[in-house]
């Protein structure tokens, strides 16, 4: 029997013993071996650990395992006990965590096989995966293009069919933006929906872990596995997790979708706008009602985000001091050791630590950080007002298709602007999804972004399922 490609078909085939978990695992490792030399989606492939794990699942399959035998890739800022976790940084180049993240424990209980750790921007800071200390990932649709970021390795691995599922993390668009640029589904969960225990911290009022998949069904399954309360994360929400697969439907009758047209006036490529408008048409054909809304402060999401996130980053990255774990560059005194060790941060991490340190410093805190937090409250208020009238808010996920490697590395501000439509959901703590809805003339994917009320991930899954039946997404040649 040929090895199935979706998580749901793999689970069914392994449960029925039509294929073994070991055969599925070998197939994934073969594909990674064939494709990853060109793509560099993975920083570490755990061949041995994955095969041992698959063999154990074959010998003794757990009951009620929604991901039985399914290979899953993890962004390399998610801690895995005994398996190197670098956050794509020189400072953690040899770091082997003594414990696993909460989401990793949940994946293991669900019968998943963790296949390896994916590339990302250093400490998840970037929008192209070019800020990885270990070299960039390439877009499976066009190898001279970036896959997006920071979770670019996870997006590329799923897009190229190396794995059916992967986890990424978001602080400001880092799942949805690469999902859009690689043509896969990517979901940012409500702040608090998924445990961050074992996620290497970047911006703690923003960070969330979320799933990548190639079908709404698989996305719903993975989301159901990782969502839920964890007492080890004080921001984890203690509320029930619905069965997200019950939301799968091709009927959107009664769903009201708001479009903030004013946001689309500048800098959106025609190919993106065309695919966006076509996807709205399909949503309407599925029964949704499309109306205009206003989000007056959403255009300020990027400046607010880069002040808030970097302030938090400068604080979180203070722990990398060469004392308790990670790399140390030896020097005669402790203070010099700090300086020399921290010189090993990459340029983008340094830039963000500098911005964050500046906006928190005496004399600037009120004008920058406090002001940004107030505008952040206004951004959230805009959404609360919109959600009194509509169930979902639609915008393109990104203003452009994937850009070329090197095109924006010299101009940080241009790089930041690729998250102009995604950062608002992080600041407001809302769940949001990117759904692949088409290709540009040069065959590069375009994503539609939908944002929902807090904890209404089910509404996002439902809309994604309706769209995938009407706008089936082709696969890159790698598949």
């Amino acid at each position, binding site marked *: 029997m040929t090895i199935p490609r979706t998580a749901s078909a793999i689970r069914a085939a392994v449960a029925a013993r039509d294929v073994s978990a070991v055969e599925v695992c070998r197939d994934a490792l073969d594909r990674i071996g064939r494709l990853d030399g060109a793509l560099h989606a993975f920083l570490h492939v755990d061949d041995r650990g994955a095969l041992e794990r698959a063999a154990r699942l074959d010998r003794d399959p757990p009951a009620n395992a929604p991901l039985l035998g399914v290979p899953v890739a993890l962004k390399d800022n998610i801690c895995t006990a005994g398996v190197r976790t670098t956050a794509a940084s020189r400072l953690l180049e040899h*770091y*082997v965590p*003594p414990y696993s993240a909460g989401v990793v424990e949940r994946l293991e209980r669900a019968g998943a096989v963790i296949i390896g750790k994916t590339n990302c921007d250093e400490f998840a800071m970037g929008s192209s995966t070019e800020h990885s200390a270990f070299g960039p990932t390439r877009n499976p649709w066009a190898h001279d293009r970036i896959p997006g970021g920071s979770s670019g390795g996870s997006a590329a691995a799923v897009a190229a069919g190396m794995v059916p599922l992967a986890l990424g993390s978001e602080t400001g668009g880092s799942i949805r933006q690469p999902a859009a640029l690689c043509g896969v589904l990517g979901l940012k969960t409500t*702040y*608090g929906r998924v445990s961050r225990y074992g996620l290497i911290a970047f911006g703690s*009022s923003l960070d969330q872990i979320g799933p990548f998949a190639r079908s709404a069904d698989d996305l719903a399954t993975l989301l159901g596995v990782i969502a839920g309360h964890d*007492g080890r994360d*004080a*921001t984890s*929400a203690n509320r029930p997790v619905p069965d997200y697969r019950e939301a799968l439907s091709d009927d959107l009758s009664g769903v009201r979708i708001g479009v903030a047209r004013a946001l689309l006036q500048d800098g959106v490529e025609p190919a993106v706008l065309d695919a966006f408008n076509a996807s709205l048409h399909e949503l309407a054909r599925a029964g949704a009602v499309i109306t205009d809304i206003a989000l007056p402060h959403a255009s*300020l999401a*990027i*400046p*607010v985000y*880069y*002040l808030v996130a970097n302030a938090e980053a*400068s604080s979180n990255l*203070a722990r990398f*001091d060469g*004392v*308790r*774990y990670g*790399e*140390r560059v030896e*020097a*005669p*005194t*402790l203070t010099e*050791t*700090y*300086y020399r060790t*921290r*010189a090993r*941060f990459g340029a983008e991490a*340094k*830039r963000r*630590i*500098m*911005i964050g*340190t*500046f906006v928190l*410093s005496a004399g600037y805190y009120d004008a*920058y950080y*406090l*002001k*940004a*937090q*107030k*505008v*952040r*409250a*206004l951004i*959230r208020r805009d959404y609360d007002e919109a959600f009194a009238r509509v169930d979902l808010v639609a915008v393109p996920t990104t203003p452009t298709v994937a850009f070329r490697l090197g095109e924006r590395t010299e101009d*940080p*501000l241009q790089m*930041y602007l690729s998250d102009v439509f995604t950062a608002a959901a992080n*600041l*407001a*703590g809302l769940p949001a999804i990117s759904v692949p809805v088409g290709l540009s003339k040069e065959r590069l994917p375009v994503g539609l972004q939908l944002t929902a009320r*807090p904890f209404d991930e089910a509404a996002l899954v439902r809309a994604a399922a309706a769209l995938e039946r009407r706008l089936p997404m082709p696969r890159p040649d790698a598949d």
Partner: protein
Amino acid sequence: MSEVLTRADVERIAALARLELTAEEVTLFAAQLTNILGYADQIQQVDTSNVPAASVTTPSETVFRDDQPAGSLPRDLLLGEAPAADPAAGLFKVPRVLGS
């Protein structure tokens, strides 16, 4: 109130963050940080009088747990992660802290 950051400003911020920068990085960051903060200045136009600052936007309650001792990761395992440690003494080792 757009800030222009000089090389001296960049060096002062880098010292606060214990970051060693090369001369090229100091020059580059002075220009780039000025540019980024200039862009961020657009938020100054927004009227935020009577707006409370949001830190976390999802309503949440203060989380309590019972004041009971619970298990933690073994000390030896964690000291084993350190670049230098004395596991028998239960201490991390660092270079000289005070001047000679």
